[in-house]
């Protein structure tokens, strides 16, 4: 079947240190909001995809217990895991369930409750999203460490400074301060970032996205159902996945995320986007670390190789610039509940395209087109999703 697929409802919990709610209650927040703004009743949902990396909280198989709590039994369900792209992988899976004709209405719910682990335990679990046997066990690399290897090389090859990267953090906090659902609702100065302590030198605390509790939900439908439920369905015009070596030593270089570049090329082709700067009104990109946002500019062809750093130096990714990026605050300021992040990006962009976000962080919507860039691990997974009003 060739029918199109639309997102008709989205929701998100407040991100942050959510010790005020249980695992189930956290999921409920996103689910309830998505259900309410989709117009779908629970009985209409035919399949439920949960996205969660797991381990940070103690439940071993979250899909079963969540489906029960959300009163969605006996609908079929599973949990999808692809590190920090789990959420996008869930959207991809739901999209294809509908495309195939198996289901007409699918719920995707992403959740991670990371604060139920201590910080050293969380760092250990995160690091193990790389290759444990060869790289984590013996060398004790961490997630900031993976990206620090890229940042050091990028600085040396393209003559960028630590201060340049801090400009990404400043921008994302500027917008996060305006997002009521963000974990860190405050602006930071360049000095705050430059003076923050090293986590994996040259990556500093303020180059890093935080550890986050959060959930996000999206309801996808086949086109026959889109207008039945929604006045403003948001269409999935392009969705693509690619992979790259999980082993650091398997990479050709440490200046880009090749899987993100590949996935973007495929998604652009699918959506008929020849020049992203011309078509895309707003993008959410995977800024787990500031270097990751700069590499995203280049992998998405917003800038040529080595020129991504100039986009942020020239403030071209603020509203009013060439292309506004991470108006939610990004992973950096909004937060990064890893299994929910990809779904949260879709929730944000649906609201951006509908003109429903807070006024001072609303992108001007000219072409009605938005892009989500989600990277898992150090790029062993990448998903790009292109959404459109038309």
């Amino acid at each position, binding site marked *: 079947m060739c029918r199109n697929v639309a997102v008709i409802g989205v929701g998100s919990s407040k991100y942050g240190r959510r010790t005020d709610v249980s695992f189930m209650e956290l999921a409920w927040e996103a689910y309830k909001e998505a259900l309410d703004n989709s117009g779908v009743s629970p009985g209409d949902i035919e399949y439920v995809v949960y996205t969660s990396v797991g381990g940070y909280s103690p439940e071993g198989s979250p899909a079963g217990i969540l489906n029960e709590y959300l009163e969605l039994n006996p609908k079929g369900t599973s949990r999808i895991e692809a590190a920090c792209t789990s959420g996008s992988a869930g959207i991809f899976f739901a999209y294809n369930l509908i495309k195939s004709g198996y289901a007409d209405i699918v719920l995707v719910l992403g959740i991670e409750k990371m604060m139920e682990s201590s910080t050293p335990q969380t760092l250990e679990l995160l690091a193990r999203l790389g290759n444990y046997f060869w790289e984590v066990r013996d*060398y004790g*690399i961490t997630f900031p460490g993976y990206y620090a290897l890229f940042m050091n090389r990028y600085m040396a090859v393209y003559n960028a400074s630590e201060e340049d990267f801090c400009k990404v953090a400043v921008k994302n906090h500027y917008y996060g301060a305006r997002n009521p659902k963000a974990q860190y609702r405050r602006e930071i100065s360049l000095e705050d970032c430059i003076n923050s302590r090293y986590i994996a030198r040259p990556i500093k605390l303020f180059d890093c996205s935080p550890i986050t509790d959060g959930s996000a939900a999206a309801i996808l439908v086949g086109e026959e159902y889109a207008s039945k439920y929604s006045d403003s369905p948001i269409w999935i015009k392009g969705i693509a996945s690619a992979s790259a070596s999980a082993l*650091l030593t398997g990479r050709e270089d440490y200046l880009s995320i090749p899987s993100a570049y590949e996935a973007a090329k495929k998604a652009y082709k699918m959506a008929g986007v020849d020049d992203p700067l011309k078509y895309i009104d707003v993008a959410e990109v995977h800024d787990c670390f500031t270097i990751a946002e700069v590499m995203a500019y280049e992998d998405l062809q917003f800038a040529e190789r080595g020129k991504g750093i100039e986009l942020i130096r020239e403030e071209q990714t603020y509203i009013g610039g060439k292309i506004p990026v991470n108006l939610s605050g990004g992973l950096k300021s909004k937060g990064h509940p890893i299994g929910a992040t990809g779904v949260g990006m879709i929730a944000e962009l649906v609201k951006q395209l509908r003109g429903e976000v807070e006024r001072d962080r609303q992108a001007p919507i000219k072409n009605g087109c938005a892009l989500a860039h989600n990277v898992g691990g150090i790029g062993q997974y990448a998903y790009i999703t292109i959404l459109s009003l038309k």
Partner: protein
Amino acid sequence: MDYIKVDNKTGGKYIEDYRKLTLEYSISVGGLEKYFEGLKNGVLYASKCKSCGSIYYPPRSSCGKCGSSDIEWIELGKEGTLLTFTEINVKPATHSHYDDYIIGIGSFNGVKVLGLVEAKYDELKIGMKIRYEIVVREPENYYIIVFTPI
């Protein structure tokens, strides 16, 4: 005993889990015994496919490119180039007993290798010449690749 505790940052209430789980694994090395024997003898091996010539580091016992299982072991040259590095300041749980450590990626005749770097951070430069040796790391007594600037 406080049964229900308060998170002072949020006022949220929680119960500390009274079940503790330690994960322990016995990890199979498969057909790579020769590699680990090499480490014991101070030799670093990559695997080379006799059929198509592909070189793998870390090594593997079959060739993913051509499918052959006809493998030979080649010793990597001791001198190479530092491609990039980082100092790990905030450590994961299983490495928290070490002082801050530097990790680097070196290229040895085009074969990329991850190792610890024995040097001061400020002395390191991308592109500098390095050599590797295999040393025993305390307190676990395991073999690890260590780079030093030449």
